[in-house]
């Protein structure tokens, strides 16, 4: 019998402004082991080329709302990594 597949989930990652420039993309479908939190997603992003320019704990949003690093992520979530906000 084959070993059961490691459970995983896929999220949509959005980068903006200086972070998009650092990693060279604005959107990415990212698959991470399940269960996962926003920290898991950030760790994987930081392993990509240019990812060392992301802070260890960037501001994140999950499905259009601010969310803490320890928040769990689910299949299909839209995860945004937000550079320091400068509106107003």
């Amino acid at each position, binding site marked *: 019998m084959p070993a059961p597949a490691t459970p995983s989930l896929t999220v949509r990652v959005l980068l*903006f*402004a*200086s972070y998009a420039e650092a990693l060279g993309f604005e959107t990415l479908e990212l698959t991470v082991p399940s269960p996962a939190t926003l920290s898991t997603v950030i760790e994987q992003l930081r392993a990509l080329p240019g990812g060392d320019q992301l802070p260890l704990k960037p501001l994140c*949003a999950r499905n*259009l*709302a601010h969310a803490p690093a320890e928040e769990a992520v689910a299949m299909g979530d839209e995860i945004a990594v*937000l*550079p320091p906000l400068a*509106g*107003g």
Partner: protein
Amino acid sequence: MRFVTADPIDLAPLIAAVQAPERGGVASFLGLVRNHHEGRGVLRLDYSAYGPMAEAECGRIVAEAEGRWRVTIALRHRVGTLAVGDVAVAAAAASAHREEAFAACRYVIEEVKRRVPIWKREHYADGTVVWVDPTASLQHA
């Protein structure tokens, strides 16, 4: 797009949208593009947003203000390329109670700066272009 717009912002229609015969006071705020930032001359800047979240967050901020004070709020933030003197953000708060109008208007502007996912890239007179990071230094107005 109710709160975030690429069009120039005019305060008058925002005030018209919130005023009503029973509301005697309207406090408002305009944030304008300044010609300097930390001692450097600014020529223009580009605002960009995470559009759907910016709309959602503005809606939450307005709902919070309208729940906390007896006010009606209008709010707009501009995106795109702005010149010095252009309106970047405008908020208006109408109330029968002027202290509440001021408090709510102030709250909305502070929370927009703190929470709404908008970024700006400043073009300086010396030719450089920088993503503004308000957390990196003291920031005013």
